[in-house]
């Protein structure tokens, strides 16, 4: 023996007390095995390397790795979830005497599914499963030593256990396999454990064991140790109290699972290590060498029993606690009862006895979650839960349907519990759970207090969130009402401004602006145009009862409405009593009776109106409210796709398909029902691809001739609280334009130049100020159609043309004057008087007046072609 590493630099006064294992020249192999002595090969030249030596070296390295791995907490690192799969097969009964078939035989097959994952055992050895594993629980061996305690004395099983035979679970059933019955002594709770093992297939063959001098010709035997794990059933230890699994011997007690779990949890709170006595005082008080501690005084609580490790903790990694029913089929697999989070630094010695540690606290929470999740939703209320749970963790997660906040009721805890509920920001839940997790578990048989936390995202958190019947202060209603009024006023103002923009834009550019139908900033309760109608200028009609038809409208509008196939005609209407139908009618060129004539065409909603021409198309029923009634006294928006007119209701063809036509006529019709009604017509326009534009708004389009079949229609303002002053201050007042209009200066111009050749008549239209009559203008006045901008362009063109005439005339006159001067005064003098040197040059170059004239004309054309930017003032 030689000390290879001693205490090379001892501290002054340092004294070694002992060496473990003691210094000795021989350390026997069995001693190494039994005492876990660490050793390695002493390698030196000339030593023989036997397989024993190499195996020892291998074992030593594995052992060192396992020791170091004990710094990591033991348990399942990830995965390894266990699921029970049951399937039932019914086979017809076999024919008995007389050919009568016996009762069908029901066979229940139970298999387990173990998911991939890895784990580390308490001794530092780890296990890994790379794929889902399906197995039959009957094929798994039962841990002999633990089983031996349950087997009655004298049973033959003892011999097999002593021999180390593998006893599978299926073997412990009585022989009548179809009606399997477990042997009486078997405990109905077992733990499935993954025991780390290492396997080598060693075949006793001379060929494989003989060394063939390592020549290439002979394959060396491929024998190797392979690490893995073995699944083992570890029965509940006999010396630990086992809750009764049944009350009547057949049905499993529903509380069995919870009781088993809490037996393990309670036990785990006990201190694990044999601490011994560290207090000199206590030792001095003991009476004799190696005496037990002094007896307890009367009333003194016994010291908490020291925890003996559960057998499965010493064997390997426990995967699930499985309960077995009367036929010894797995009834449940409780993972959280025995599985602890592995990996990461392990916990230090507990600060207080009986407190437990975070792995236990987490397991308690997980156990409840697991068991509640496995219950059908109908069994998650208090009366049912009491039959499954005796104890609950101090903190956990509840099913959502356990609480009814509106009724202020809960159905999870017994009525003897005082349950308070509070909202809590979501991100605080973990901290609160961590604070409560170490507390004592809840006992459902006793009275207790529980606080239920309702996690909500921080942005929704309000301390009063759950106070659902809170009365809202009237100020809120008042303020909301005020804000709604304000919003309405703004919407109305926006609408009024839009109508003025419509007018100005149409007048300036000849195009009606389009607005998005849906305001992207609109609030859910905002009705946009419907709200805005409240202040619009509208037309009122009174119609008497009794199937009376009334229509009014206009014809010959000079500002026409172009229709395209994607358009839908849109009209707003309101009535104070139910009506039979509503219609909107225009006139299009259509084939009727073999002739192409202007025909009434349009849409109706509700009953078919009378005398409405041949192209009236039904656009649907009148809109109804939630109760199926046609709403009265509220604005409705009626829509009809113009493509409906392509159909010819009477079998007649339409000469001009509706595509790209412009209409100048619109009539609004109504057919009353049994009662008379007041109808108010609002804006009318088109809707296309979510964009809307209004043709008829505060007034009929320019140039229109109003018409009605009976009774008057009156323009009025649907006063939405907008004052006249406000109305005027918003911009151009449209009140002055009523059917006819006065264009001021243009009218004067028209009157002055109406008869001039090529004059303005063409531009601004005939019969400009006409206020009645059916005659359509022969040429549609482009002023109204194209707007002022186009008029300005056209006038500019005319002025430029006139300028050209003047310029050419002037040039010609100048040439003639030059030539005359040339003849009278000579070239030099004539050139001096000529204002344009270019002209002089041209004249001089050209010998004949005709040629000069042509040259000048070309020059003028070239000069005109030059794009000279106008001089800015």
């Amino acid at each position: 023996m030689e000390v290879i590493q001693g205490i090379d630099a001892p501290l002054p006064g340092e004294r070694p007390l002992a060496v473990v294992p003691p210094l000795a020249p021989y350390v026997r192999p069995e001693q190494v095995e039994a005492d876990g002595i660490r050793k390695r090969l002493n390698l030196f030249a000339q030593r023989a390397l036997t397989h024993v030596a190499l195996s020892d070296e291998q074992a030593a390295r594995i052992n060192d790795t396992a020791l170091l791995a004990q710094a990591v907490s033991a348990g399942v690192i990830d995965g390894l979830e266990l699921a029970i799969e049951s399937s039932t097969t019914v086979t017809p009964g076999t024919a008995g005497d007389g050919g009568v078939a016996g009762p069908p035989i029901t066979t229940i097959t139970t298999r387990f599914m173990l998911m991939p994952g890895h784990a580390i055992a308490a001794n530092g050895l780890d296990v890994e499963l790379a794929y889902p594993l399906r197995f039959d629980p009957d094929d798994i061996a039962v841990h002999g030593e633990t089983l031996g305690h349950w087997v009655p004395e004298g049973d033959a099983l003892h011999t097999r256990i002593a021999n180390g035979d593998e006893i599978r679970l299926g073997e412990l059933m009585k022989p009548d396999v179809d009606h399997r019955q477990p042997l009486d002594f078997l405990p109905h709770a077992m733990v499935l454990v993954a025991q780390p093992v290492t396997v080598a297939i060693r075949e006793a063959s001379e060929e494989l064991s003989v060394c063939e001098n390592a020549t290439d010709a002979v394959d060396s035997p491929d024998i190797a140790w392979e690490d893995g794990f073995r699944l083992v059933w570890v029965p509940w230890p006999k010396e630990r109290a086992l809750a009764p699994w049944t009350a009547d011997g057949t049905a499993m007690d529903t509380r069995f699972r919870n009781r088993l779990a809490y037996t393990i949890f309670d036990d785990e709170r006990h201190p694990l290590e044999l601490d011994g006595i560290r207090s000199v005082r206590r030792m001095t008080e003991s009476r004799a060498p190696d005496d037990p501690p002094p007896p307890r005084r009367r009333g003194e609580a016994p010291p908490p029993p020291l925890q003996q490790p559960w057998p499965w903790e010493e064997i390997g990694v426990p995967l699930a606690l499985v309960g077995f029913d009367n036929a010894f089929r797995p009834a449940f697999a409780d993972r959280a009862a025995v599985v602890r989070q592995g990996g990461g630094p392990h916990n230090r010695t507990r600060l207080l006895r009986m407190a437990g540690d975070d792995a236990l606290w987490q397991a308690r929470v997980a156990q409840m979650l697991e068991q509640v999740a496995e219950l059908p939703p109908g069994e998650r209320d208090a009366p049912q839960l009491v039959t499954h749970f005796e104890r609950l963790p101090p903190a956990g997660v509840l099913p959502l349907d356990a609480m009814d906040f509106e009724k202020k009721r809960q159905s999870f805890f017994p009525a003897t519990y005082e349950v308070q509920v509070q909202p809590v920001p979501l991100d605080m839940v973990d901290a609160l759970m961590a604070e409560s997790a170490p507390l004592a578990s809840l006992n459902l048989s006793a009275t207790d207090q529980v606080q239920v936390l309702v996690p909500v995202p921080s942005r929704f958190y309000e301390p009063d969130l759950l106070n659902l019947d809170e009365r809202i202060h009237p100020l809120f209603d008042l303020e909301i009402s005020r804000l709604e009024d304000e919003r309405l006023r703004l919407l109305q103002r926006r609408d009024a401004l839009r109508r003025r923009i419509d007018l100005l834009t149409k007048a300036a550019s000849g195009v009606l602006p389009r607005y998005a139908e849906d305001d992207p900033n609109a609030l859910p309760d905002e009705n946009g145009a419907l709200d805005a109608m409240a202040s619009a200028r509208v037309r009122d009609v009174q119609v008497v009862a009794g199937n009376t038809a009334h229509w009014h409208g206009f014809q010959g509008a000079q500002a026409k409405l172009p229709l395209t196939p994607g358009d839908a005609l849109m009209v707003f209407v309101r009535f104070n009593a139910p009506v039979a139908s509503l219609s909107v009618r225009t006139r299009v060129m259509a084939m009727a009776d073999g002739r192409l004539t202007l025909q009434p065409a349009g849409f109706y909603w509700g009953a078919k109106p009378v005398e409405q021409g041949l192209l009236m198309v039904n656009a649907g029923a009148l809109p109804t409210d939630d109760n199926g009634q046609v709403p009265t006294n509220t604005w409705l928006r009626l829509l009809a796709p113009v493509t409906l007119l392509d159909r010819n209701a009477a079998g007649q063809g339409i000469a001009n398909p509706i595509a790209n036509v412009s209409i100048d006529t619109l009539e609004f019709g109504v057919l009353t029902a049994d009662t008379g009604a007041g109808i108010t017509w609002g804006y009318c326009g088109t809707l296309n691809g979510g964009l809307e534009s209004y043709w008829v708004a505060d007034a009929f389009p320019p140039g229109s001739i109003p018409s009605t079949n009976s009774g008057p229609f009156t323009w009025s303002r649907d006063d939405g609280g907008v004052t006249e002053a406000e109305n005027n201050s918003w911009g151009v007042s449209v009140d002055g334009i009523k059917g006819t209009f006065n264009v001021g200066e243009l009218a004067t111009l028209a009157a002055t130049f109406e008869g001039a050749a090529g004059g303005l008549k063409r531009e601004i239209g005939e019969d400009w100020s006409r206020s009645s009559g059916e005659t359509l203008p022969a040429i549609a006045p482009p002023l109204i159609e194209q707007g002022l901008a186009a008029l300005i362009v056209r006038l500019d063109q005319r002025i430029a043309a006139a300028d050209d005439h003047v310029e050419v005339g002037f040039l010609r006159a100048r040439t003639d004057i030059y030539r005359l001067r040339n003849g009278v005064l000579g070239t030099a003098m004539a050139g001096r008087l000529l204002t344009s040197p270019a002209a002089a040059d041209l004249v001089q170059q050209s010998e004949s007046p005709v040629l000069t004239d042509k040259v000048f004309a070309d020059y003028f054309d070239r000069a005109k072609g030059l794009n000279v930017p106008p001089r800015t003032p």
Partner: protein
Amino acid sequence: MPLPDAITVDSTSARTALQGALDSGAIVVDAGRRRPFYFDGRFLTAADLVADQNYIRARQSDLAQAIGSGVIRGLMVSLGGNLATNNPQLVIQPGLGVTPAGDLVYIAEATPLSLAAIPESQIVDAQLGVKLLANAAVGNRTGLYVLALRPIEFSANPVPAYPTTLDGIRSVHDGDIIEATAVTLIPYPDRAGTENADDKRARVAREIFFEGQRPGVLQEALPLALLFIDNGRLVWLDVFMVRREIGAEPTIAAGLSQRPRALLEAWFKQHIDHVDDIDAKAMSDGFAATRYFDVLPPVGLMPAATLRFDPGAPGGSALLQSFFPSLVDCEFAFVPADEVASLVDGALGLPPIDLTASDEDLDQLSVLVLAPVTRSRLTRLKRELENVTRIVRPAAPGMLAKRLPLDALLRVGQRPSRLVSPEMVRAQALDAAWQSALTEAQGLVQRQNRGCFWFVRRRQLPYFAEISGVTLRLAGNAADIDRTVNERVTADTQMKFVTDTAAGFPKLVQAETYNLFAADRLRVSPSFATNQLGTSDLLRRGAIEDFKLAANKPDEDKHAAVLDIARRYGDATLGSGYDALRAAVDVDVQKQFADPNVVAQLAVSGVAPEIDRAARVLSGDQLQAFAVKVASAAAAGNVAALRSLVAQPPQ
């Protein structure tokens, strides 16, 4: 393509390139980690295999350093033998640890060490190369010593070494290297002069925990315990003074904390052990903290006897404490016992309590004294005391210092009141309740916590993970309780007595009675109808019998009596004792437990829950014997024998 993680040099240019990288510092090589490069045809020497071995060992050692130094598991040092015979024995429990240098130290089984047998270790000294100093006489050594583990290696198990030449001589060499652990005693540098053992312990605790000194810490040794030996006699053993355990450190820290979590936990455990070492008389009389401690951890134990209730104290009845210096602000509170663990855990991060600090510092110190009680008792105390917290004033010495000048002036002009007003009567009743609650709590901790309350340093800036939301009380289905009780009345006629009698009780007592008898633990078992009584039937009958006693009490005592039954039958694991008793015996005795007459005897004994509790701590043969005793006593109708079976029959 990623850069290769294994570089092989197989050409001159590659060698030049590698040399360049090494010279410039672009590649760094650790010469300590060197392993052989294997290839077919290589001549394998012992040096190659040793290099392989050393490489693995170096990697493991580095990995162990990364885990941290300290005890991985076990290695607890405790006392054995008998100190009275001056033959103290230290026992090191099996376990595993890592030295700061990264070496594993491992003890496979409990190792007793005799301090008196140090002469025997001289052989070890010589073998390990430790030179004895002349003054280190064994019998009369005095001082502080660190018990530590050092990794040792020695060779053993000789094997033949074969000669490599024909005429070589066959020799023998040790074939194995044994990796052992030496237990050594290292003197702790003690710079103090004369002081007694308690002062020494307090001072060392201050040095290590408060001042953060690390005297005597060795790179190659793992300290397990600190001993104080006086002339060869062990005076005290303090494990947690030097023992540190490997474990998770909180990863979130501002870096302002002066002490790592492992040190704080060790300090707390050291404090608990220190209190455990204080003699019983001092504990029962109470003492000032400064007598045994220089500094205290932010949470710890204090003798309950240092707290007393004085109804006649100047300024009105008061709780007085004599443990902390008089300038310290104290408050007292009853807390549920299961909350102590999280309170301790949360308070460890607070600054320690320096008992020798200046008056200004002590004046800023605020401490909460906690008396652990069960939850049911706390509910009762809340009702009786109106408030379960109370300011604690220092006992007389510091009174003047803490009294505000204005208070003093007011007291001068105050005349003693002679009239007995209703408020005074109420205050007197409250004082009496406090007095009895405190005495009761002191009695309780005497049995369970070695006569100690807990103290916790209070935060200057209070924060709680408490929600500020408004609580809403949710109702359960109260009809369930009535329905359950009615079902039980139908099934068990004896229950009728309960409902009939309770009808005449005060309403609150009536509600508590229904609460008690609706508990699931007292349910009617499925076999009850066939006269086979289950555990829950036994407990229900027991509760009914106890209820009969409560019913005979005057009205004002009925509430307390019913609550007392609820407490005794509210134990979380109640019933598991009887289940264990039944499981431990054969079928005949099991039948006895299900026999209504036997159950009736157990019920009238008044100790049904206590028998259950007693059975829970037994196992194996003890349990079986106990079960037989219980069954036979009950079958014989011997109630007195049943009562004698449990240590503490109820009053």
